[in-house]
């Protein structure tokens, strides 16, 4: 398997482990882009999804926004943004956020809607204010699905943040783009492996967050 040979060669090469083009630097850059994009997408998607889900309105608008955002080609959007806004982190964030908002928004909306209506009815009947119903009854029940939406957004971002390298930024994409131009497949495969590992780590992190944040009452009954 020459892919395995490439992987071995890439990771055993000492020069890949330090300096501005070293794995630690590129990994940090990649994490930085990814976390920033995820945070922006979450700040947009979570509140809108929670509120529309709570009131059960705007489902069609959300489906429309999601379809529209999914239709926008990420790579094309990146090139366009760079041409319009110039080089920098901003033009990279826009396509990543457009990519990540639909899964967060749609899953959050559907997660809140799919919460068992009877505890919500009971809470309202007990005189709980709407904000508390949303945050203390619906959110805990919807949390596993919401985390799932965030997780799929995070994995897509981690994978796609490689495009930052195309517009001169760093991140793991650097290895892939440089490898392509230098016809250095070792770098490409090494970069791809790093992204895959990062994706697995992301899965692990979300699993751990779910263990801590989701009430055992929800986890076992759901």
């Amino acid at each position: 398997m020459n892919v395995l040979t490439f992987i071995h060669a890439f990771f055993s090469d000492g020069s890949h482990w330090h300096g501005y083009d070293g794995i630690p630097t590129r990994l940090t850059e990649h994490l930085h882009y990814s976390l920033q994009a995820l945070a922006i997408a979450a700040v947009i998607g979570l509140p809108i999804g929670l509120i529309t889900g709570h009131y059960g309105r705007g489902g069609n608008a959300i489906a429309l926004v999601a379809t529209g955002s999914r239709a926008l080609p990420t790579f094309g959007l990146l090139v366009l943004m760079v041409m319009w806004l110039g080089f920098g982190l901003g033009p990279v964030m826009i396509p990543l956020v457009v990519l990540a908002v639909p899964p967060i928004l749609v899953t959050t909306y559907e997660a809140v809607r799919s919460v068992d209506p009877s505890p919500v009815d009971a809470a309202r009947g007990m005189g709980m204010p709407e904000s508390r119903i949303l945050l203390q009854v619906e959110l805990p029940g919807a949390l596993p699905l919401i985390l799932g939406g965030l997780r799929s957004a995070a994995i897509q971002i981690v994978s796609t943040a490689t495009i930052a390298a195309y517009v001169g930024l760093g991140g793991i994409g650097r290895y892939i783009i440089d490898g392509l131009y230098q016809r250095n497949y070792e770098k490409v495969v090494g970069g791809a492996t790093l992204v895959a590992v990062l994706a697995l780590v992301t899965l692990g992190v979300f699993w751990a967050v779910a263990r801590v944040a989701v009430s055992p009452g929800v986890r076992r009954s759901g």
Partner: protein
Amino acid sequence: MIRIDSVTKRYPDGTVAVDRLSLEIPDRSITVLVGPSGCGKTTTLRMINRMVEPSEGTITLDGVDISRQPVNSLRRSMGYVIQNAGLFQHRTIVDNIATVPRLLGQSKARSRARARELMERVGLDVSLAKRYPYQLSGGQQQRVGVARALAADPPVLLMDEPFSAVDPIVRKGLQEELLRIQEELGKTIVFVTHDIDEAIRLGTMVAVLRTGGRLAQFAPPAELLSSPADAFVEDFLGADRGIRRLSFFPAQALELKKTPIVAVDSTAEQIAARTTPETPYLLVTGLDGRPLGWSEPEDLVAGDIDVARLLPYGRPFAYGTDSLRAALDGAVLSPTGWAVAVDDAGRAVGVVSQQAVGEAIRAAHAKGLTAAKVAG
């Protein structure tokens, strides 16, 4: 007192769920709203805590129009129990019960102490406090629902088909528990059900609603059974309302015969002494006084009574607490046509024939005797 004054609920699509309904719900008693599906009983209940706002008419609580009260404080002053309990699955049992006290700003420790107290009150083991709802049976969850509704000690309890989703045996236990709790606490309870038997069992007053949200009859259960207002109510009560009405007459009205009872170790003289012309059978009891079965006197050989050959005695009724309905049931179930009356300990205290039960029913009807509720 909750007063519902010509209230109508009309939905935007034109359906009328409740139509000019007026009811006066007495304090410290159970008022049951009963009717077929689509009769607006749940809508009526939900208008009392403003989960649904009436289109016309007013509802007053102790003379104050509820629509003028802040909605959340109104709801916090009324316990609310729904069909599937509606427990918060992410919270432990004790925290579920403590919800309203916490909403009212009480400390966590105090709310939890109160919650534990209520668990005992509704018959839940306190060891369940730290469990999550999914670890409880349906009946236990429903008890938690009732405890949660009682947590802030509200004067009013609204119950929307609370026992419909559990099996009949559990339901009977929950109903008995509710009557017991009510005896202790004396809440004003509004109870919605589609089950007329449940309504008759629990209600101090029963409001029968018909499809389209109109009141068909509002009366105490015994009156409902004896004089249904119209064909709809009669039909809704079912075919055997005459029999069911007997639940309101205590079995104590019966005159028991104590002679034809012999213990299993009786001598020939004792058997002869207890044989009378008007009782063709003798009831054989064990040494503890509990009934064993019937026999014809000539089949009994003193000192050698074969228990296995005795005729079954059907279902005995408790003389002190059961109703004429149970006595009649016992007489019908017994192959000899005689019912066995027992005391609290299950010892036979007398026997009574179908004819005697029939006479007692006639007498009770004649007197119009409607004693307070009798169990069973």
